[in-house]
């Protein structure tokens, strides 16, 4: 029967691969499927970090081996690869994965096996609540709304704001709710708070209401395709003020769809590729050279790199490739990485600054950094 042949083949493979003098780190990302571009960027970021550490002599005197597995952006596949990396490859730590729904299928497996893991980009709050072995390298959704409000109030000097968001999407809804809360707390006024249905392309009803309320700024927490349409239609209706949004705005297609309408728009992001801090400059230079590309690495690549870096740093400080020790070291992280200085709070979410990106002359330009 077929399965036994496979089992036998797997057993031989395990026997052959045992006994190597390496530290194995599991990497997970969707390099195929709907989120393939995210997965590839993340994988590149992880690979670059591992290669840089290996060039410096590895960690704990051993070479680091990245065992990467594709999760297809599918929770079922995710559960399988987490099990594979832990049980089959016996990795000491995990870096992954990109999409929250897949991370949520994998996190309980890592937690049960006491293998520390750090997700580079899963923003769902529930991810780190799975247990004390689960960390993440990105800020979570509520944080972006807060940072957006601070930027609008302090930097843009806005005193009145309006929100527009997708009612059928937790991400955009969460961002707007938190923006509203933070903006009110700062002393501003939210003059309009408009939801639109998922999948609509005509936002004029909501925008007309918003523009009549004369806000200083519009907070739009949608994804880039909706953002571009909203900006275009708002400009047609005569709105000239600024837009502020979240990392959903981050796409090269934003300007292609929105054109001149997305000028004077700002969004919070994990990092800015054109920031002038030494960490960013080195990262962008090395990334371009390593992967022979002229495009600046996106936020996913930066977070994949950061997540791997944070994990390796924790292993180094733990002094031993042991789950409990690494977990404890991770919790005490205080490290400067590409996306800023990272520390973890009690819920294993990072406390770090957000970059504000401005659309200027059809390009994404780094504007400022806002601390939480």
């Amino acid at each position, binding site marked *: *029967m*077929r*399965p036994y042949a*496979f*089992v036998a*083949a*797997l*057993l031989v*493979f*395990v026997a052959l691969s045992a006994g190597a003098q390496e530290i194995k780190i599991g990497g997970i990302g969707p*390099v*195929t499927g709907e989120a*393939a571009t995210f997965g*590839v960027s993340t*994988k590149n970021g992880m690979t670059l970090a591992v290669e840089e550490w290996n060039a410096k002599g590895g960690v704990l005197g051993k070479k680091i081996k990245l*065992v*990467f*597995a*594709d999760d*297809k952006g*599918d*929770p*079922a596949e995710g*559960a*399988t*690869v987490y*099990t*594979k990396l*832990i*049980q*089959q490859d016996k990795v000491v730590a995990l870096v992954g994965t990109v999409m*929250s*729904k897949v991370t*949520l*299928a994998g996190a*309980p497996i890592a937690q049960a096996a006491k293998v520390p893991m750090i997700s580079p980009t899963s923003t*769902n709050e*529930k991810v780190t609540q799975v247990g004390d072995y689960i960390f993440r390298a990105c800020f979570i959704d509520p944080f972006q709304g807060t940072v957006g409000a601070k930027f609008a109030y302090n930097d843009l000097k806005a005193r009145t704001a309006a929100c527009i968001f997708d009612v*059928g*999407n*937790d991400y955009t809804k969460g961002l707007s709710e938190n923006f509203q809360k933070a903006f009110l707390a700062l002393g501003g006024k939210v003059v309009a708070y408009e939801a639109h249905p998922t999948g609509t392309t005509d936002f004029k009803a909501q925008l007309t209401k918003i523009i009549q309320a004369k806000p200083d700024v519009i907070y739009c927490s949608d994804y880039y395709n909706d953002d571009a349409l909203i900006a275009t239609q708002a400009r047609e209706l005569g709105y000239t003020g600024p837009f502020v949004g979240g990392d959903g705005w981050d796409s090269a297609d934003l300007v292609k769809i929105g054109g001149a309408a997305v000028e004077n728009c700002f969004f919070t992001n994990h990092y800015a590729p054109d920031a002038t801090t030494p960490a960013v400059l080195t990262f962008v230079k090395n990334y371009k050279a390593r992967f022979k590309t002229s495009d600046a690495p996106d936020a996913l690549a930066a977070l994949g790199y950061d997540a791997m870096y944070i994990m390796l740093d924790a292993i180094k400080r733990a002094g031993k490739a042991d789950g409990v020790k690494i977990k404890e070291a991770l919790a005490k992280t205080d490290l400067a990485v590409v996306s800023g200085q990272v520390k973890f709070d009690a819920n294993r979410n990072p406390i770090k600054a957000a970059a504000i990106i401005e659309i200027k002359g059809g390009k994404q330009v780094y504007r400022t950094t806002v601390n939480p």
Partner: protein
Amino acid sequence: MKHFRTPKLSLYALAFYALIMALSLTGLINGYIQHIINQSLIYVILAVSLNLINGITGQFSLGHMGFAAVGAYVSGAITTLVFKVSPEAGFAGYAVFVGGIVAGGLAAALVGVLIGFPSLRLKGDYLAIVTLGFGEIIKTVLNNIPAVGGPRGLLGIPKFSNFSFIFAAAFLTLVVIRNLVESSHGRALVSIRENELAAELAGVDTTRYKVLAFAVGAFFAGIAGGLFGHLLQIAHPTQYGFMGSVLVLIMVYTGGVGSLTGSVIAAFALTFMSEGLRIVIDSLAEATSLPIGGEWRMVIYALLLVFIMLFRTEGLMGTKEARFLVIGDPAKEGTR
């Protein structure tokens, strides 16, 4: 009582169960391989139940995962949201789990019947489109119910599914569907596949039997969905979309339309192939230092499927059954 005598099948099943348990307890197969076996068995349930609809009855359903979604969400909601049990609760917990799984199956069967009456008067391509639409409707509905997590999915489902439960469910599915196929009702189903008009003229209530096939198929798909949810500890709308249904469909066709044996073999073969390729590609990349990564796995997987279909158009088993899946003497029974 003839239809419930299953000595050989039970014997083989028991031997398989004992072997896997023994290998697992002695540590000869690790959690990873155990997980793939569990997953394969869930796909056995899905493929065998879809085969009842597509292979035995000759209908073309593209929405099988929609039924699985109903099962996953109903059972998940019962264990996670209503009773809030976990495996630590001992017997009571497991009782709720089994009850939840059965309730999920029944809910899926009910949906199968509801969908069945209006749509099963359709034939061929039109039915395929309706079932495809149905699968997408289920997905969209789940996306818009905040109580079960909406687009974030139903999270925190306790991990009740284990090899024993999944194996028992797969075994029962096989026995029940095999017995159904071998009964006079089964003959009616096959007659619909062979010639619906002739079957109708011969006095077979074709609509009723089609609904029966859908209801039974949906029931087991719901069971599989429930087990899947309690294995992965998450039920997400995107898992149960069109691509999921297509994967099960591929299993039915590579195994052989109308052959339950084929579905069982294909469910195992394709699940193990998908994972085996991971290891093959990784070791190949390491040995040759070629820039090939995980993304090539799906290319090769698809190519292998193309080759199977090119060289064995009728599927691995055609319409043949393994002897132990046939009641009585297959030689006397003739072809089906």
